[in-house]
């Protein structure tokens, strides 16, 4: 089975209207830029997108929002995007906010065959509404369900043709857990290599979780908050 796709356009074949997608990344760090661009070009619409953030107005998932391709957003923090705000307030966009740790764990659970788990996060808040509460060790917890997606789209630093992935720095974030949770997982990488070039001991995502892989044409890697110190 050949997992290698020629480009982002070939990698997203099969993503159609009304599907649920997971997209890796935290802020603009470690997002699958090339696939997002291809999705914009494809014009697919009615998407449910699961991603920690919703990008900024002119980059990341913001591009899909501008283009009105997202029907529902499942995220933990969406405060960097004016178009998102407009669509949410007007009711065009459905929004489901989930605590960040629960989002990560629910994706992992979806990939790991754990349909539900108890967590203390959100107990006593509106997040817990309608959810089962149970006490463990004297502390109340709520039951959270696994998340899966028709397609998970992740971005890695290096990958081999078998789908093994290595991420770089904090661009790792949600990518490994989402890679586990896609019915089909697409990985875009900065460098695609042959099997044997990556050390088996340092693979972050084993290839079994990845169905399609390609080397991205280019990575802008925009920085959201450039903070520096002086050399004084």
């Amino acid at each position, binding site marked *: 089975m050949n997992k290698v796709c020629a480009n982002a356009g070939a990698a997203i074949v099969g993503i159609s209207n009304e599907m649920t997608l997971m997209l890796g990344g*935290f*802020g*603009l*760090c*470690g997002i699958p830029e090339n696939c997002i661009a291809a999705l914009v070009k494809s014009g697919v619409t009615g998407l449910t997108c699961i991603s*920690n953030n919703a990008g900024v107005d002119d980059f990341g998932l913001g591009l899909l929002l501008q283009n009105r391709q997202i029907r529902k957003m499942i*995220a*933990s*923090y*969406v*405060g*960097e995007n004016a178009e998102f*705000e407009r669509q*949410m*307030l007007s009711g065009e966009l459905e*929004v489901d*906010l989930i*605590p*960040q*740790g*629960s*989002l*990560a*764990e629910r*994706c*992992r659970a979806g990939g790991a065959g754990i349909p539900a788990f108890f*967590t*203390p*996060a*959100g*107990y*006593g*808040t*509106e*997040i817990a509404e309608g959810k089962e509460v149970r006490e463990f060790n004297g502390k109340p917890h709520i039951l959270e369900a696994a998340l899966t997606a028709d397609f998970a789209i992740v971005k890695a*630093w290096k990958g081999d043709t078998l789908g093994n992935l290595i991420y*770089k*720095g*904090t*661009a*790792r*974030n*949600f*990518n*490994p*857990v989402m890679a586990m949770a896609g019915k089909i997982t697409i990985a875009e990488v900065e460098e695609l290599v042959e099997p044997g070039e990556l050390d088996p001991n340092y693979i*972050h995502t084993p290839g079994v979780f990845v169905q399609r892989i390609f080397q991205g044409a280019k990575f802008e*890697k*925009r*920085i*959201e*908050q*450039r*903070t*520096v*110190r*002086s*050399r004084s």
Partner: protein
Amino acid sequence: MLDRNQIAQRIAQEVKNGWYVNLGIGIPTLIANYVPEGISVEFQSENGILGMGPFPFEGEEDADLINAGKQTITARPGAAIFDSAISFAMIRGQHINLTVLGAMEVSQNGDIANWKIPGKLVKGMGGAMDLVASAENIIVAMMHTNRKGDSKILKQCTLPLTGVGCVKKVVTNMAVLEVLGDGFRLLERAPGVSVAEIREATAARLVIEGEVPEIAF
């Protein structure tokens, strides 16, 4: 009154050697600048790094190395990178010794509200709900009153909660307060601020025992 940096500086005194600390966005971030010499602390950022260092020198920013505030950072020697599930495993599993975050309201039973104002735009809770539900040691850093002068130190929170009964201590521009459950114990007051002024600015029950010392740096 303390300014934002002084609030951070006071909280930095709470940090003990060898601790792992998660700092929220805003005032808490400033704490890293005031950790006393001789105290070795590892900072965790919930997007997936332990051993966060200072901001990079200009020209050395790496888009693949940011903190939970999306700011470019550096990694200290001995840092570790991990995914979001492991990051919150650390948090939920109580492996982090201290969490400091900002708040809109704190109540005397330790409830905290810091993520949503009904009728206003909701930006989301990010990692705050996981942090406050899990951490054993939570300090809130905030202004004592809002812009209208209303107390943010309440008998009961009015805003949607982020977590219940979790805050242990609050450091404001006016005072250091300990959460008692049925009130706040006034531990210290900002230089030049009287107990009466603090009482005036506090809507919650305030417990004052003996002489209340000024915050010392």
